[in-house]
């Protein structure tokens, strides 16, 4: 099996160690004998139909503003990729840009791609700190995600939209709703960086399996388990940090 990973705007949206997420996806696939090809998708590039998994990272306001119009122009391509079964992970700035719009600290409205059912407005105080979520991507098997958040944006989900998880400690989407991130089928958006995947390997594996589903008759393939002792040690420290000192108003 081969996994094609499309990395959107690696030159612009890379502020919180996004390449750590890419390294984890690549290595964990490779350790299972799955070949990985990483494609950079830059300004003006079309979203390649052969990308099984799309990744969008975070940037500062300045980089985000440079990218926003292009992201909006890619909406059609992104939507048809997702319709064709691609999986997606968007972190922080990338998460915001996949929503309908982002109103920045200066009041300027940046159009988004309108892929995820949400919009974002900059708040006065930044929401910064360790975070811990509980997610249930597969009904009946709740898992936790430990990460770090640092965002001025307050993200508001549309009525009926699904969050990625419930906030156990930290701020989450807006510091009030008790929810974090957004899920739309195989597409996930979140504020958690840190980077997210090294210490939450189950999510990396979920994304890899979902991305490969379309090559496996629509069913996510079973991935061979890896040891993950180091990964869980890192998760446990981060989870403890979130419980001890995660952000709250």
């Amino acid at each position: 099996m081969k996994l094609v990973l499309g990395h959107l705007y690696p030159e612009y949206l890379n502020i919180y160690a996004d390449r750590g997420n890419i390294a984890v996806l690549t290595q964990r696939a490779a350790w299972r004998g799955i070949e990985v090809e990483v494609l950079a998708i830059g300004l003006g590039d079309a979203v390649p139909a052969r990308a099984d998994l799309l990744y969008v990272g975070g940037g500062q306001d300045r980089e985000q503003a440079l990218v926003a119009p292009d992201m909006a122009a890619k909406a059609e391509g992104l939507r048809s990729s997702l319709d064709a079964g691609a999986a997606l992970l968007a972190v922080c700035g990338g998460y915001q840009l996949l929503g309908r719009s982002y109103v920045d600290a200066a009041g300027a409205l940046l159009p988004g791609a309108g892929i995820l059912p949400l919009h974002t407005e900059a708040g006065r105080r930044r929401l910064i700190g360790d975070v811990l979520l509980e997610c249930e991507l597969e009904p009946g098997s709740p898992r936790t995600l430990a990460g770090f958040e640092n965002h001025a944006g307050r993200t508001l989900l549309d009525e009926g939209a699904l969050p990625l998880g419930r906030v156990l400690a930290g701020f989450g989407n807006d510091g009030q709703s008790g929810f974090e991130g957004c899920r739309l089928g195989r597409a996930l958006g979140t504020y958690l960086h840190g980077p997210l995947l090294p210490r939450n390997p189950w999510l990396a594996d979920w994304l890899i399996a979902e991305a490969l589903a379309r090559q496996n008759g629509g069913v996510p393939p079973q991935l061979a388990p890896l040891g993950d002792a180091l990964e869980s040690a890192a998760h446990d420290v981060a989870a403890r940090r979130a419980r001890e000192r995660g952000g709250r108003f």
Partner: protein
Amino acid sequence: MRLTCEIAVAQAVGALSRRSGRGGGTTLPGKVLLRLDDGAVTRLAARLPEGVAIVSATNGKTTTSALAARILGEGRLLCHNASGANLLSGVASTLLDSRGSDMALLEVDEAALPEVLRRIEPRALVLGNLFRDQLDRYGELESLATAWRAAVRVLPASTRLVVNADDPVLGNLAAGRAGSVTYGVDDPAQARPSLQHAADSKYCVSCGAPYDYAAAYVGHLGDYRCPSCGNTRPPLQVAARSVRLDGLEGACFDLVTPAGTCPVRLPLPGLYNVYNALAAAALCHALDTPLAALVAGLESALPAWGRFERIAVGDGKTVTLLLVKNPAGANEAVRTLLSGAEPPKLALVALNDQTADGRDVSWIWDVDYEPLLAVADRLVASGDRAAELALRFRYGGMAEDAVEVVPALEEALDRALALTPAGGELVVLPTYTAMLALRRILAARGHVRNFWDAA
């Protein structure tokens, strides 16, 4: 009279703090003074006959001011916050002890710079660099840059501005300002083959187009030009040419100044220390120091504690501490280690996540550790986030059994020393609080002094 009373009260508090074993008392007296009288700092600064020089930057402010102190301290009594207490409270504490001094030399935290400049009109101000650092604490680099620009706009005309022209965020701050001094590296042979992953400011400050780099030296520092609007690195008044890096032994370069050119043998390693030397030389040039004194000061440099220290620990073994606190600094530490004749086979890397380290540890994924991973046989990962660090090395391609995870610092130090051959050198790359803790361990064993005594 009022100032005298305030000073006495604040100093008594500092003495009590030291005597009660709570540490150096390097910020508490300043906090007391600021509480008693917010204007006292301004008046303390104004009584110094040769004024105040300020150094601010993300990376290198402690080393730059230590180098400037070697030069300016010749024939002058300097008041200098050498312990690194560089917030407003530390500045106030330092000025409290300035009676009889000729001049104050202050390193100032990059986020604290605007509030310090509201209280002190410096005779000279060095703006060294802005790198991505502790985003959880400082916010975005761009908002810091905006605050610096606003502070520079209202500086009195009498302040000599000293600017690193190689930093595109800062380069144009000197434009149109009389008496300003620009500095930078002028040696394409030292350029990186491409911009590093962690380079922060790749897009033109005026128009947003990606810069063309004729040479990229450290992070986004280099010889840049915007192909779209023509915004470019300003001409260098103080520069380093013909640079030669000798691993951990030091660096040689030709120091070019408006007063002439002279070869310098700098006893500090790495291109980042060449930048620190240039900043110190440009500052002292702006304060009318002759070239010969610049060179003598730089060549007699002693490393700032914990930044780069070689500590003998018995058995002929040496512990070499290289502080790393952000991607740009860590990349330079790695490059320096690999530029020597014998790249290290073993290193102890320690990652803490206290406030002073940055609670967000994501930055380790932006560091290019890969050249070190390629030559090292073994790495010991330590600190509060040892497992996270070990994951970085492992996903970076290091074999599982080549990475040892020992979270407790003392235990990790002993393990790494046991792996070091007799007569060998153990390289340690700690974050800030890990460096302090390791130094405390070495001090308890009688190998180094505590920082408030050493400074």
